[in-house]
């Protein structure tokens, strides 16, 4: 439904100042979101390039493409780049930054300068980690397990960890900014239960960012103290405990999984509502499920350590808690599905991503039950089963939602429409490539192939070849949107304020929005996703 007579608004955030300083010194949350977009896109393709090399190496059982040392660095840097510099910031810092103020009818975030500072902190942190990569690399795995990282590894642990330490502050400050903004800057009439679910999920995410990230910062300091000054906190030779590190690391890094998936869930709620033109079924349950996941997410870290010498009782407690955290996730999936019932469902690109997300997240979530079942986890943990499971959540979940959201809000961000046909084709390519890459890995894991193996017994080759073939399809699928989205910036049709005929305050302002977001502060008298009987505005 492209606009027939849409005009570009005369003043908007993109033409409010030109030149490099108007971007690098901006305090506009929308421009800062685009700065983040540039950053996370860069790291996505850097991390992706490492993944390509990993899959090429694993196409044959022998370690013939790169040597073992290089291979270890490849999977380490793939993980570090993707987790800390892409997945954690991607949705909150790009889509959240752009949309939170607009969705709540505010002019900006509560602390615009802090928001800009967060981006600089992210960039500075990433430079340290990039330095660690180009000056020889890192071979500890993204998990930095001690005592390997403290006494054995000869790679660049300190600069890489310092980069993650610094970037953590970006995460903390962003979370803080979001929490204050959502509490204090909602438009008149926009009560908590009128908020879009995207806001609820970002609120829950922000709580984790603020409460969890300091723990990883402290843990990194302890690793550095051990490595540089031989404190011995994690060194058993002087009475330290290497497993203590795993407790501290997963106390942050398990909730960090929810930092990645909760904003994705928020995006999916928006997409499903918009392309069904319907209220999200069970709004309050979906909203509280986000908070439930955030809280329970702090209590399940021990399920990463079922085979790490943990006591039987501790394992059982972490097992039952891990099952509990599955329930709010299941509730969300059921509610999205129910939302589609009797909707007015448009098969636009963002909806294809949303449908893909629900399917893949369902598989990712259900395979999580295998890992929470402690007697079965013993067999499949540290194998390709784990690798497949978390890629279904992080790639099938977070990246599908991120791309869906990027397509949905692209007309708002850029003011222009992308090529719908190419977008649909690439969404399908990504879906197929993803499944071909990661589904065989479930089987590999069950058959016993350990993760982080540079060479493997020949009986695992067929499934590895399938996975590598899928990865090449997936890689192509990710490159196509780069092309048509960039193309649309110049040649795309003008979008008009509301190209999808969706409700939500972001569609009540121009595309692109003015620097102050709205000509005048909106007054909200309606619930989220409350559709009028006929839809106006989408034909501008």
């Amino acid at each position: 439904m492209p606009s027939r007579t849409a005009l570009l608004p005369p003043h908007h955030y993109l033409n409010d100042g030109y030149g490099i300083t108007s971007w690098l010194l901006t305090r506009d949350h929308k421009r800062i979101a685009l700065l983040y977009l540039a950053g996370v896109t860069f790291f996505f393709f850097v991390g992706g390039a490492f993944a390509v090399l990993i899959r090429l190496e694993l196409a044959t059982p022998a370690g013939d493409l790169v040597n073992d040392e290089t291979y270890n660095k490849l999977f380490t840097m793939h993980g570090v780049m993707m987790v800390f510099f892409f997945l954690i910031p991607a949705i909150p810092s790009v889509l959240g930054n752009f949309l939170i103020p607009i969705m709540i009818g505010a002019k900006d975030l509560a602390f615009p300068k802090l928001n800009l500072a967060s981006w600089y902190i992210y960039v500075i942190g990433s430079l340290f980690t990039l330095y660690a990569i180009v000056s020889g690399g890192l071979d500890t795995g993204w998990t930095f397990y001690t005592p390997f990282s403290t006494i054995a590894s000869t790679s660049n642990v300190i600069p890489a960890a310092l980069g993650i330490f610094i970037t953590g502050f970006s995460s903390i400050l962003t979370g803080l900014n979001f929490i204050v903004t959502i509490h204090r800057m909602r438009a008149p009439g926009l009560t908590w239960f009128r908020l879009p679910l995207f806001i609820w999920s970002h609120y829950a995410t922000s709580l984790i960012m603020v409460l969890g990230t300091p723990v990883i910062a402290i843990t990194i300091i302890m690793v550095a103290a051990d490595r540089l000054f031989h404190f011995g906190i994690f060194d058993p030779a002087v009475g330290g405990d290497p497993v203590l590190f795993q407790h501290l690391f997963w106390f942050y890094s398990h909730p960090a999984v929810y930092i990645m998936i909760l904003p994705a869930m928020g995006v999916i709620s928006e997409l499903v509502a918009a392309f069904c033109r319907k209220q999200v079924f069970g709004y309050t349950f979906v909203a509280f499920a986000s908070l439930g996941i955030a809280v329970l997410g702090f209590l399940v870290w021990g399920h990463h350590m079922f085979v790490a010498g943990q006591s039987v009782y501790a394992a059982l407690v972490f097992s039952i808690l891990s099952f509990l955290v599955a329930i709010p996730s299941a509730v969300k999936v059921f509610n999205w599905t129910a939302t589609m019932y009797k909707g007015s469902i448009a098969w636009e690109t963002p909806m294809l991503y949303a449908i893909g997300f629900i399917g893949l997240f369902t598989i990712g979530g259900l395979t999580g039950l295998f890992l929470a079942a402690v007697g079965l986890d013993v067999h499949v943990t540290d194998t390709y089963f784990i690798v497949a499971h978390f890629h279904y959540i992080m790639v099938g979940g977070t990246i599908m939602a991120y791309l869906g959201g990027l397509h949905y809000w692209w007309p708002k961000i850029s003011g222009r429409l992308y090529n719908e046909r190419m977008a649909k084709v690439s969404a399908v390519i990504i879906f197929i490539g993803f499944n071909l890459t990661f589904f065989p890995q479930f089987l590999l894991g069950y058959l016993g192939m350990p993760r982080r193996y540079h060479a493997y017994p020949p009986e695992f080759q067929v499934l590895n070849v399938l996975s590598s073939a899928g990865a090449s399809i997936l890689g192509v699928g990710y490159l196509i949107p780069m092309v048509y989205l960039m193309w649309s910036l110049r040649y795309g049709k003008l979008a008009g304020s509301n190209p999808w005929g969706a409700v939500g305050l972001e569609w009540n302002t121009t595309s692109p929005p003015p620097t102050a977001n709205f000509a005048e502060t909106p007054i909200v008298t309606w619930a989220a996703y409350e559709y009028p009987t006929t839809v106006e505005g989408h034909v501008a």
Partner: protein
Amino acid sequence: MAARVDSLYFFLIGLTVFFSLLIAGLIVTYAVRFRRRTPDSIGAVIHGGLMLEVTWSVIPFLITMGIFFWGASVFVAMSRPPDQTLNVYVVGKQWMWKFQHLDGQREINELHVPVGRAVKLIMTSEDVIHDVYVPAFRVKADVIPGRYTHLWFEPTKPGTYHLFCAEYCGTRHSGMIGQIVVMEPNDYQSWLSGGTEEGSLASAGQKLFADLACNTCHRPDAQGRGPVLQNLFGKTVELASGERVVVDEAYIRESILNPMAKVTLGFQPIMPTFQGLVNEEGLLELIEYVKSLKQDNPNAQ
């Protein structure tokens, strides 16, 4: 045990297939049946339904609790070796596995065991964390420096099975592999008797015990300055601090390397540390010697 793990696995496969197809089927059906027919149409006004929310919260809750108990019972069985086990000590180091049989045989990256007997591995690491993983037996346990971890299995079929290190441990992690050779009892006996010049592990421990002059204080006759070690293993002793502690492998290890940590009640804290004087294998020999000190044992002095 492998069969119990597998039945849980296949149950969960069934559950995953069922729910994935249910969700996918509903989504595709709705997406087709309720596709937008005119550009301006909107969806039906439906806010939600409490009964449905309760239903789809309670049913997953019950299912997951069922899986929890199933998985827990498998795990508890896995964690409790039978009383009579064939014990083998394992030391992991970058990047090899060292196996030490009680009768004295040493193996590297290969472990021979008889079929039909429960085998218990008592494991530690010389450097970083490793992990013994035998996919065919569905067992896996981290091998941690400074600790003893355990793993047991009972092979049911002769053959050769993969042994992998499953905890990333550095450059040649993927080369830290080996095999478990499961043999018929007769073959195992002839393997045991072939090619061993060294004595049993306990006798090596006895020699080390004398070499390190442990026997000047730890005497069998209660006249020594240190506790009597005869019949000590597995007992509970009272400490000077008032705590009680079970004498297991970890306690003996700690008492050799860090004697001040847990001093037995009634003894002076005078024992020097043997840190740096005994390696991991020496510790295992001493532990096995202490275990062998029973009244009816020929090793008892």
